[in-house]
């Protein structure tokens, strides 16, 4: 077993995300989480997967205005993380199978992690 101390974070182009995720699903990976980080070039999105207790991450870096494909077609449970990223960061997710339209996280101000003013 690969030790948890060996980190794997693979950069993936936004356009390759869906095919890569589809392959991982076929190989039996479980989706763990998706999270976003606000960076100077836009957003960094980290997709984490698990297989046999080993952690593998994919990283997609996108400019702020770019849309990201939803992975809910492969991993339905991802709706939680995608709605969260949409509500807290303002990341545009397309084809989300369970899109709350900005009503998942009820926050006082819109996109608190990426304030518009």
């Amino acid at each position: 077993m690969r030790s948890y101390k060996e980190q794997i974070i693979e950069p993936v182009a936004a356009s390759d995300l869906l095919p890569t995720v589809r392959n991982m699903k076929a190989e039996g990976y479980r989706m763990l989480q998706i999270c976003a980080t606000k960076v100077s070039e836009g957003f960094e999105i980290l997709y984490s997967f698990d297989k046999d207790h080993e952690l593998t991450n994919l990283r997609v870096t996108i400019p702020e205005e770019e849309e990201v494909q939803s992975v809910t077609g492969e991993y339905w449970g991802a709706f939680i993380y995608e709605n969260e990223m949409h509500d807290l960061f303002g990341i545009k997710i397309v084809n989300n199978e369970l899109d709350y339209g900005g009503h998942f996280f009820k926050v006082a101000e819109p996109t608190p992690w990426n304030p518009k003013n």
Partner: protein
Amino acid sequence: MSYVTKSPWVIHYDGSSCNGCDIEVLACLTPMYDVERFGIINTGNPKHADVFLVTGSVNEQNKEVVKQIYSQMPEPKVVVAIGICANNGGIFKECYNILGGVDTVIPVDVYVPGCAARPEAIIDGVVKGLGVLQEKRNAMDGNTAAPAPAEKEEA
């Protein structure tokens, strides 16, 4: 002494607490601390309750819930804010989704500090709240001369 102070019923609402104070409130009801021996029962129905225990601070979403529970409780009523978050926001005060302590939306009678508030402190706070409850009741009856219960001084 009125029936209210003899067996006050409490209602508990978790604002945006970390659960620490919530489980301590619940621990008060269990055999180690056992507040039921004082006739205190935890109810889920605001219309049954005399004492409102709030843990955690308020935010834009639960503001209305807290107000609603408070307005549904019959007079006289007492609000006890449990834990530092309910007092003034505590460690989360600077978070973007936090408004502040419970007193930003409803009047608070007793503040119980602590992170998390210990069961002994919570019981003390409720007992202190009962004194306030008696005062409020006296004021409602126009009978301000009646002595407040002795517990008040001890708490």
